[in-house]
């Protein structure tokens, strides 16, 4: 295991741990307002200080991790569960109209920046964490479809696939039995990367108000709330920012490390 993998896994598990612990314990109730105690800088009672409503920032960061992780994870889940089968199908039917249809569909979705998808979705259904998940998830579909198709295509050229066809197996069976396990590593690595991109995207959406709604804490919204106060309470912006950076950094390092560890030959198209 490389240094990257250890450091990355360490950072990511820290965040996951914080999120998990927040279910049973936070130093303070993250929704409890205490206006007289607002805008405190980090101190012994409030390790990360308090926000403009006097809420404990440490507790909010912990619970915010929950939101970030849940949104990003579900978005990756949507992307994978739709994108991977599409990619496998396209590869299995390479050159057919189905392949063409899937890939053109992918290109089309790809042409919509994630934020634009989010704008469209929220224009219809209103802002909320679920819609953020859907927006980021939709954006993930072509990512996974492409990467799956690309890897699967090169696998379809391999002789062991030919051997399986000689053994009478059909495309669906071969995809499930031979292709999927061999692209799994790649998908895990890409999944980590999309996960980190998902965290960034969630923060961005929440920042512009299209993500999780109050009182659900979200790092992006904490930043939005902090914006007018950076000049006199910089910790309000610094702390959620660092939380995002460290999480994303951890996941990226983990992704890189995983890639090297699982298969040094795999090359992932990083976007």
């Amino acid at each position, binding site marked *: 295991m490389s240094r990257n993998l250890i450091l990355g896994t360490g950072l990511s598990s820290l965040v996951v741990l914080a999120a998990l612990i927040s279910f049973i314990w936070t130093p303070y109730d993250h*929704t*409890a*307002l205490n*206006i*007289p105690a*607002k805008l405190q800088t980090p101190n012994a009672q409030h390790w990360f200080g308090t926000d*403009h*409503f*006097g809420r404990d920032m440490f507790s909010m960061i912990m619970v915010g991790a929950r939101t970030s992780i849940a949104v990003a994870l579900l978005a990756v889940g949507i992307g994978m569960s739709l994108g991977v089968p599409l990619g496998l199908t396209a590869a299995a039917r390479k050159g057919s109209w189905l392949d063409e249809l899937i890939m053109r569909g992918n290109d089309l979705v790809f042409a919509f920046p994630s934020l634009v998808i989010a704008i469209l979705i929220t224009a219809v259904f*209103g*802002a909320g964490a679920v819609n953020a998940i859907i927006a980021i998830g939709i954006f993930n579909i072509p990512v996974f479809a492409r990467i799956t198709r690309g890897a699967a295509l090169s696998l379809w050229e391999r002789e062991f696939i030919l051997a399986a066809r000689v053994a009478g197996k059909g495309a669906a069976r071969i995809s499930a039995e031979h292709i999927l396990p061999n692209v799994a590593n790649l998908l895990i690595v890409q999944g980590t990367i999309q996960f980190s991109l998902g965290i960034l995207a969630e923060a961005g959406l929440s920042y512009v*108000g299209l993500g999780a*709604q*109050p*009182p659900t804490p979200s790092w992006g919204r904490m930043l939005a709330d902090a*914006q*007018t*106060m950076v*000049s*006199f309470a910089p910790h309000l912006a610094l702390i959620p920012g660092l939380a995002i950076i460290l999480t994303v950094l951890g996941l990226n390092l983990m992704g890189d490390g995983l890639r090297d560890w699982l298969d040094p030959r795999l090359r992932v198209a990083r976007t």
Partner: protein
Amino acid sequence: KDDITIAMQLEPPHLDPTSAAAQAIDSVVYVNIFEGLTRFMGDGSIVPALAESWEISEDGTVYTFKLHEGVTFHDGSAMDAEDVKFSLDRARAEDSANAQKALFAGIDSVDVVDPLTVKVTLTEPNGNFLFNMAWGDAVIVAPESIENIKTAPVGTGPYTFGEWVQGDKIVLNRNTGYWGDQPALAQATFKFISDPTAAFAAMMAEDVDVFTGFPAPENLPQFEADPRFQVLVGSTEGETILSTNNKQAPFDNVKVRQAMAHAIDRQAIIDGAMFGYGTPIGTHFAPHNPAYVDLTGNSAYDPDKAKALLAEAGLPDGFETTLHLPPPSYARRGGEIIAAQLAEVGIKAEIINVEWAQWLETVFKGKNFGLTIVSHTEPMDIGIYARPEYYFQYDNPAFQELMTTLNSTTDPDKRTELMQQAQRIISEDYVNGYLFQLAALSVAKAGVQGLWANAPTAATDLSAISWSE
């Protein structure tokens, strides 16, 4: 220096004050481009404008306005009684798009006596008539300019329309042919900066000279501490209330509404959401109005009492409802605080952030809401409680009766008494949660003088503004 850049939060959708409710229109054009028969002053008083003087008939139903001589529109045409008749008739017409048609509802006829005299006949006496005629919705427009009024307004005011860069700014130039005194500033640029951070940044960077309706109260202490700037804190006509859907269970129970009123800590909201700016109110009335009664005691912060009231109402475990929050920070921040305070007594209010358009659709028109926070910025608008179809759906015949009486009363003392009575009724009925009177917060460069501190109506009276040496 004879030009100024004034920033405000909202950009007008267009520039016709007589066909939209948007306050932002008045903020730019009122008494700058367009003038009415009467006008508001910074202290809220009503003074003659295009009407030099007027006479009121004995029975209070006929107003004869004497117009100023030599007034011309910006296009050079003369402003005369025909124009007044045209403007008022247009506003009260069947197909009128005027947002405040009620202002003109009592007009029976408008007659041109001579080019400088107009006679307005009312169906019944209206103590508010001169006040009504001061509104931006009642300004005098030129018939031939109606076509393009939304993008190229032509009025009689001291400033002419220059250019409009949508999404950015509107420029006004001094009207050298103005009938009154020439204003000090030759040019004024209105910039639209809705984002609180950008507002702060623009001010700090001295990109703008004045910011009226500064959206980030948390930043005011910094401006106060900075000798480059002055901060003006005044009052607005905006009663910020927790509007309650009176027809929806359990809000149809006055006990529940009372419980909510006691669950709310106004000071915490003013401190938390407005950073201390704002005056607590206990009813729907502006505290700076002489007729105001302080009724905050009716709804003092008392969570235990709130819980007891809820129990009495048969809801010992509280209930769930929705809290729709439009974009301004008084609503968004205030909403978060209120939700937390309500949660303390067991009321779970789900926050739903909405854009104004959605708010109008679901809350205002659809009446599909539990609670919402809005600042009602129209002056003297307690009359909305007499409209049972109004979105918070308060239906009290006694109150409606009272309002009818008020409208036909001209005697000032009698009016004051009636208004105080009205304040008490809605306060004791806990129609809505009364939070605070929105403060008028302006930041300006130290050298700017003549700014209105208070905002009796949405306006930026440019002719009053000048630079000190």
